[in-house]
């Protein structure tokens, strides 16, 4: 037996459990409950009510990605700078929460923000009025940033760490101000990491369903929640599939677009 045949169980499993299921999504998206071909599912989700949910998801995912980049870039830059002798352990500390189940992290965040939660109790104890936090869009955004921040830091850090430090020193020697060193040397060289970070934050953010549901007790309704409802509570798999298909195409398109910005995939994914 040829050695390449050892890969056949793997190939079979991947085709059967990743490719075939995706074909089922396409099939259900283009059929009605009786199994006849239709495009009604798509005309249904083209209504303003559905588009508004999609718009909200995209908007929140963009805000979340922007915030993660704003907070995460300096974090990665400082970690990669040579100022800290224990930088390696700091990196581990920042990455550890990434491995914690996101529901647990969201749950922990909920505890802080609830009406009678830790934050509001603290505020009241010093005589300030409490805030209504859970149920607002801000709470959902906070939950998302909290969950996805490490995914932005890691790829940027990896790229910056690999950067040749003498290039920065050369720029400094040639009279660059620190700000210009960052804008003319560091930023352009870290683009692959930024692209990779944006992908890793935006993709899960735009399809999240449990974070929004938990952080807003159902007040903020995103595409992920809609897909969940169609499959779990409403049992209308055809419409659910058409929404999933639209999301999948959207994500494949954005990955393709980001690949164009970073053709060699230098940023590397997590793996």
């Amino acid at each position, binding site marked *: 037996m040829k050695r390449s045949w050892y890969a056949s169980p793997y190939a079979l499993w991947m085709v059967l459990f990743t490719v075939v299921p995706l074909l089922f999504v396409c099939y259900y998206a283009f059929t009605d409950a009786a199994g006849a071909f239709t495009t009604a599912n798509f005309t249904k989700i083209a209504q303003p009510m559905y588009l508004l949910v999609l718009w909200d998801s995209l908007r929140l995912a963009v805000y979340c990605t922007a915030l993660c980049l704003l907070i995460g870039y300096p974090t990665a830059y400082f970690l990669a700078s040579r100022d800290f002798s224990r930088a390696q352990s700091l990196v581990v500390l920042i990455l550890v929460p990434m491995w914690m189940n996101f529901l647990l992290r969201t*749950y922990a965040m909920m505890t802080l923000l609830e009406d009678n939660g830790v934050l509001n109790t603290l505020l009241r104890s010093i005589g300030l009025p409490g805030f209504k936090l859970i149920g607002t869009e801000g709470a959902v955004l906070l939950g998302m940033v909290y969950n996805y921040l490490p995914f932005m830091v890691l790829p940027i850090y990896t790229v910056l760490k690999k950067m040749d430090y003498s290039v920065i020193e050369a720029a400094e020697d040639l009279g660059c101000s620190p700000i210009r060193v960052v804008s003319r040397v560091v930023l352009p060289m870290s683009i692959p990491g930024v692209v990779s970070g944006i992908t890793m934050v935006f993709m899960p953010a735009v399809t999240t369903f449990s974070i929004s549901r938990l952080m807003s007790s159902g007040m903020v309704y995103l595409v992920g929640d809609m897909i969940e409802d169609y499959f779990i509570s409403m049992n209308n798999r055809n419409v659910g599939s058409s929404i999933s298909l639209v999301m999948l195409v959207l994500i494949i398109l954005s990955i393709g677009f980001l690949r164009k910005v970073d053709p060699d995939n230098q940023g590397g994914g997590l793996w």
Partner: protein
Amino acid sequence: MVRNKRASKALKGTYLALVLAFLYIPIVVMIALSFNKSVSRAEWTGFTFDWYAKLFQSKQIMAALRVTLEVAVVATAVSTVIGTLGAIGMHAMNTGMANVLVNLSYLPMTTPDIVTGVSLMLMFVFAKVPLSKWTMIMAHIAFDTPYVLFSVMPKLRQMNPNLYEAALDLGCSPMKALGKVIVPEISPGIVTGALLAFTMSLDDFVISYFTSNTDQNLAMIVYSAARRGVEPTMYALSTLMFVAIMALLLLVNRRSGLENM
């Protein structure tokens, strides 16, 4: 100049400390509350292990723990075998074919979890397979295996190809050469891959949620409890899950170093 440098270092340190505080305060508060006597999050009324005791008395949570472990163990075992064989096979293939398979392995990593979950659900429902821990296991194998594959592949590339040829020349059958030469050489990659697969499996919520109906894993319990509101037993459960994942990660990390994470 020196003073300037010190100021900038202090500034960077403060910034990093703030980011760490943002990341850890919720976790620390949650762990602390799991030992709090009062049900209310607002006050600390004394130290207790009651919530942990309640946790172990709850039939539902213990059943979920069993499902979680069974699924993780079975999925890890199967995906380790399939993934290792897959890596060995792909290593022996011509590049064109191997590239197709590598791209296939990236597919579950780029598809959003929720779409993977509903797509599997559709297939199982269509095939009239009841959604239980068995369908959950099949789904977990599908997303675990690429992690094994990508842990084993680099070890194969580092291996001296002549070793295998030498074993064959010295009279080993191909099967025996595989077991005696290749597997021992790549075993660090296999173990790392298995640990990663196990961690991923323990940690999964979204895909399990859509592929199992009758059996719930721990993450699904956390989700349904969180939708009802916050309960201290869930803090205890979360704390234990956090500790378990940390222990596993330490193990993986000691093996592979952070750079490969």
